[in-house]
């Protein structure tokens, strides 16, 4: 199976963080704020799972995002 493309990686992360870490739904008119919000949620997620806290979508973070899991959010909704 080929590794996900950059677009797929972003899509997986955005979907994951929207459903589980309260990331607001992306709007194309506010790309900069969305990027900042995504980095913040990534840090939260990385902290939760004991990953290196970078705020960036690295391979280890993506690997955790692709594991089968419970659909209840990890942070209070």
């Amino acid at each position, binding site marked *: 199976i080929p590794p996900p493309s950059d677009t797929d990686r972003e899509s997986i992360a955005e979907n994951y963080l929207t459903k589980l870490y309260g990331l607001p739904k992306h709007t194309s008119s506010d790309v900069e704020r969305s990027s900042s919000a995504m980095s913040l949620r990534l840090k939260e997620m990385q902290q939760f799972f004991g990953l290196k806290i970078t705020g960036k979508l690295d391979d280890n973070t993506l690997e955790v995002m692709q594991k089968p899991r*419970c659909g209840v959010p990890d942070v209070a909704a």
Partner: protein
Amino acid sequence: YSTFQGDYKWKKQDLTYRIENYTPDMSVAEVDDSIKRALQVWADVTPLKFTRIYSGTADIMISFVVGDHRDGYPFDGPNGFLAHAFPPFEGIGGDAHFDDDERFFYRSTQGYNLFLVAAHEFGHSLGLEHSRDPGALMYPTYVYRDMDTFVLPKDDVDGIQSLYGPNKDI
């Protein structure tokens, strides 16, 4: 461990559950046994008692559903999200939904063990949030364990007893 912020715990110790439908992956007896064992995991360490009912509305309504099942939290097909459950409150609170696009099993190692997934979800039904402890049952990602030798990890015992106290009969 972590509990839901707010007063999300049952105010009674005798709770009811109802299995609304079945997955085709397993026999009815296997689903019944998996659910019963999963609830017993929590009953063993608390004063909570679970009684099955076959009609009407139970505190914990259990169903196998796919995709958008109209609770605002659609499932996503095979893998990804396996199940979810709501913390204790009136109405949908306590209910557990299992994604029937998954392949659940009883003892085979193919797919996802329903007992383990259900035991995790019932932790939510009783008021536990996800734990950051990778060894905890309430850790968010699925990890296979043998259901015959399963022992509720200490983190989960501490969590549920912080809400309901210990089982004084044991």
